[in-house]
């Protein structure tokens, strides 16, 4: 219990620090919301212009986008500064300090480097999900809400696992940010659209290798009563929690593996 309080305090300290520079924070939050808002509009306009893509209507595509951004931001709140930022912490020697604390370093960095910046993405994507949900007239039932919650949590676990997988190589290659940039952002952008618009190679990649399709593409079909499963089985729409848990567990193992090989930097 006292540990929970400690981690909460670490989050609050971040908030307190941020409030010291609130103008910078607010400016950044607004800029991010505008940039992502523009993405959202662009997708909507484009899909609307073409009367849907691959059989998906504009609001179906924006629902994909919303789920995707929501789970990404949830993961990013804990994982951006800690795992994407791991290389920087190693270079500055800050990571040595982390290891001298009587706490689990994985939890310590996730909470201590809590990123409030993602709350603007979170509110934008929450709005997009609600709007798309309403326009698509998806019934608000207990089952649907529960499925939505499970989808968001599983999606966040997958995204967090990707942050960890791309961050941990910093233990060997001190500058490894490029890996995250390719796998997290460049590949991640594919799943803003239904993956059936791509060729089968990319569909396989996004399902089996970098399983972003489980963040939104498969589970969202539950709400939309779609059967757009490309080459895979319809049961895939229920597999997100399994994929999320397995990926996160594997990512944690990978983290432990990297940690044992940490070589610090000279000082």
């Amino acid at each position, binding site marked *: 219990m*006292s540990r929970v*309080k*400690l981690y909460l*305090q*670490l989050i609050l*300290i971040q908030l*307190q*620090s941020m409030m*010291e520079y609130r103008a910078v924070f607010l400016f950044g939050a607004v800029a991010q919301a505008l940039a992502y808002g523009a993405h959202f509009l662009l997708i909507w306009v484009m899909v609307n212009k073409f009367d849907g893509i691959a059989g998906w209507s504009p609001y179906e595509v924006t629902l994909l986008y919303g789920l995707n951004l929501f789970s990404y931001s949830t993961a990013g709140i804990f994982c951006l500064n800690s795992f994407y930022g791991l290389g920087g912490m190693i270079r*500055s*020697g*800050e990571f*040595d*300090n982390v*290891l*001298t*604390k*009587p*706490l*689990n370093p994985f939890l310590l960095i996730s909470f201590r480097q809590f990123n409030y910046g993602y709350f603007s993405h979170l509110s934008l994507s929450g709005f997009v999900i609600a709007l798309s949900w309403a326009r698509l007239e998806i019934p608000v039932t207990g089952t649907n809400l529960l499925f939505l919650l499970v989808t968001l949590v599983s999606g966040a676990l997958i995204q967090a696992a990707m942050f960890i997988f791309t961050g941990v190589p910093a233990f060997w290659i001190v500058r490894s940010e490029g890996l995250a940039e390719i796998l997290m952002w460049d590949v991640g952008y594919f799943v803003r659209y239904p993956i059936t618009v791509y060729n089968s190679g990319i569909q396989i990649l996004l399902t089996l290798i970098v399983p972003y399709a489980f963040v939104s593409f498969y589970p969202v079909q539950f709400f939309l009563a779609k059967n757009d499963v490309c080459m895979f089985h319809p049961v895939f729409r229920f597999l997100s929690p399994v994929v999320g848990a397995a990926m996160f567990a594997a990512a944690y193992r990978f983290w432990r593996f990297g940690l*044992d090989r*940490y*070589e*610090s930097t*000279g*000082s």
Partner: protein
Amino acid sequence: MAIIEVNRVCKDFHVHTRRPGILSSVKSLFWREYEVKKAVQDISFQIAQGELVGYIGPNGAGKSTTVKMLSGILVPTSGSILVDGRTPHLNRQENARHMGVVFGQRSQLYWDLPMVETFDLYRKMYRIDEPRFRENVAFYVDLLDMQEFLHRPVRQLSLGQKMRANLAVALLHDPKIVYLDEPTIGLDVVGKSRIRRFLREVNEQKKTTVILTTHDMDDIEEICNRIIMIHEGRILFDGLLADFKRKFSKGHMLTVECAQADVSVPDPRLRVIRDQDGRASILFQPNEITVVEAVTCVMQHNRVLDLGIREPEIEEIIREFYEDMKQV
């Protein structure tokens, strides 16, 4: 009973060797060549509870690597380390609970928090019970004279104040061992001596074991009673400060100013190393010839105007030592 036992520890680093040219850069994407750098080679020592140990050596000698292994940050390549009965890297969190660290300029503090709040955070982190917490805060605030900056955000503190704050935080949970890497670096004379006095005081009152790496030999002289000297990953000396001086010192230095031009010193135990216009520097080993004998000899054979005698300073011994090592 030793609180730290280091037994035949080695630590190798794999350093990625780079070759010039774009082609080899591309090649290194797929195949990397590594060179093994032996940072620490077969070192062993034991430290008892309450010792004040100075761990010295030139840059790159392996000091930080050793301290990082003791604190559980790095995993030794071979050999064993026991700190208070635990292997640090296998019991990292438990080991951390009983140690304090100050790694030079790298701060343990929160930039935007005042010290009062930082103390509170560390109270939770180390689960310090309330009475002991209050007692220790009072003790350190008083001993380190922190009252005036307790409520100011850390970013506004001076270097000396930040170092004091770091020390207080590192010691707040009454660790059995504290590792200090260059605790006086960049401080002014007053600041340095305050920290040295503080460390002695804490050691005396709480029996804290202090392991200190430094390049400032006054730190060693004023804080430590034992030194371990490491060079190129190997221990060259481990023992009392006085023994270190005896072993590595070239001797006492007698400087004389005489009325005549040439200084005459007939005793072979006295070595004239400089003689210019009646000013001479004479080196002797106090175990071969006593100070009184040496002075008497010089006085008898010369018309001495002025005379001075100086014990070797550790700084000088070490400097000469490093220079000798480089020449080898």
